[in-house]
């Protein structure tokens, strides 16, 4: 039975996957359903939700369509979240595998660097990178990735350390495989599943950091994101609270969906491990 099927058999995995699917569809459909710039003025300002059928969720202080912003914001959130998490995982995989497999001073140096990255609060680190690199979509992705690779690196290293002494790794050594080949072809695939369970958490954290960065005004100013929508809503919190509430719900649902999927993956992995492995 494939991983996907096992995941969908858990209740949380199923709910999470469905919610994520909805979000992904919204992100993909955004340019079709709401062609044109979501940052352009579309109607009267401060239209409350459900007052006008043309703007089901109302308009903001400049008369921009909130629903269009939500759909386009889904694009930004998912794209940044996935890209940053992927980059962070890649860095973490390489660092963790090299550290765990090489051992000795290489391991020592890499782990001290990992420590150093972990004693700086992650959000502060992301802020620092953004302030040096400047605020664009790419730099936000890089900043988040550079501040999120430590957890996967640690996990992969621990996995590699536990696996590299097993018999098949020793067998690969005996037949004279190159250490790098053993590390990346024999050990890494076995070490991967727990890292995948962690990766969902990293995606969620990346989405959160992106929205927090753009909430503080350090994101890409030319792209509408849920964070920037909430930042603008905050300025009119007293008169139009829905402007900051609505994008937050979208953000909450997305992050919750990712967490549910991660729980589903964990359950599926544990069910799998209940059957003793060879």
């Amino acid at each position, binding site marked *: 039975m494939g991983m996907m099927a096992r995941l969908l058999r858990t209740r949380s995995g199923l709910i999470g996957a469905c919610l994520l699917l909805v979000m992904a569809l919204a992100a993909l459909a955004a340019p079709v359903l709401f062609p044109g710039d979501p940052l352009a003025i579309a109607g009267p300002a401060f239209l409350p939700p459900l007052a006008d059928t043309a703007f089901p969720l109302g308009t903001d202080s400049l008369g921009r369509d909130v629903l269009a912003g939500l759909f386009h914001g889904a694009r930004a959130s998912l794209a940044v979240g996935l890209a940053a998490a992927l980059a962070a995982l890649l860095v973490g995989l390489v660092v963790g595998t090299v550290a765990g497999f090489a051992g000795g001073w290489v391991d020592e140096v890499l782990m001290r660097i990992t420590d150093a990255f972990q004693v*700086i*609060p992650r959000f502060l680190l992301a802020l620092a990178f953004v302030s040096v690199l400047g605020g664009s979509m790419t730099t936000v992705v890089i900043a988040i990735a550079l501040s999120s690779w430590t957890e996967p690196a640690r996990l992969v290293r621990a996995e590699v350390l536990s696996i590299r002494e097993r018999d098949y790794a020793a067998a690969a050594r005996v037949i004279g495989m190159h250490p790098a080949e053993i590390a990346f072809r024999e050990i890494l695939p076995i070490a991967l599943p727990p890292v995948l369970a962690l990766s969902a958490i990293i995606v969620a954290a990346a989405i959160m950091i992106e929205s927090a960065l753009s909430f503080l005004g350090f994101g890409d100013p030319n792209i509408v994101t849920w964070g920037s929508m909430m930042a603008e809503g905050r300025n009119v*919190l007293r008169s139009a609270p829905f402007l900051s509430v609505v994008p*937050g719900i979208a953000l909450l649902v997305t992050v919750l969906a*990712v967490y549910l999927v991660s729980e589903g993956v964990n359950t599926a992995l544990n069910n799998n491990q209940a059957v003793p492995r060879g």
Partner: protein
Amino acid sequence: MKRIAALLRRRLAGAVPVLFIVIAFAFLLLESAPGDAVDAYLVSVGGGDATLAASLRAQYGLDQSTLSRLWLYLAALTHFDLGWSVAFDRPVLSLIGERLPTTLVLMGSATLLSFGLGSFLGIVAASHPGSLRDRLLSMASLTLYAIPGFWLALLLLIVFAVDLRWLPFSGFETVASHKTGLARLADIARHLVLPVVTLSLIYLALYLRVMRAAMGEVWRQDFILFARARGLSARRILWRHVARNALLPLVTVLGLQSAAMLGGSIIIESVFAIPGFGRLAQEAVAGRDAPLLVGLILVSALFVLSINLVVDLLYAWLDPRVGSVEAR
């Protein structure tokens, strides 16, 4: 005691290289920021010609090689000189020293609340695993986990400051109220209710989940079976035996959370306009103030390292098994 002293020595020795890496990283950040201290100074005094800039750079060693500048930077750090804030036109260290206590009060109260409430709810959830109560708490904690902090802050503001008008909208205390003593403390407490509640709600979920998982581990141990065999009441076993032993892993989480909470304070302090450490970080980035930002990074790294050290020692003190091999 010997065991804990050995642990302390080992941890301190481990922390030194980490601190050096952070300093090197901080230096790199400073280097990559556009402009240097002389540029900033010339702007603040209203400009100057190229010869003045060159002589100033020579005077402060800014014209030397990268390596010798790193050496100068390290030398300055040993005198606790974190440099000069461009945006505030003040020494970085005094600025941070002024803002840090506010954040420590905020973080301390939030940690107490989230640790206390989170572990209590974790015990409640784990006392009947799989029950409706357990599943509801699990769902609630997952939702809390997924709530963006600044959104929760805005929601609480809308309800308690805008609609109900129970609590102040922003700030650390009422401006120019000239309150003193207890009246001032009460005023500050009123201002801190919403930020503290927000911060603790965000981090409560982790304590709940870790506590619940740890309780599950302890339930399976032999001494619980023995306690049952002795005929102790279920309540006594739950609180005196299971919960007490399950609290240990939570101490580790306490250390891990310190870094996360310091990061979280950036956005929470910005929403509530509290002049603390976190808001300073936001102001440093907004004002393109590289020396201040780097100073904040160094101080937060030092803070997190010390918290982790304290947590390690606390853990060793609580659990006699930790470090007993090394002391021998």
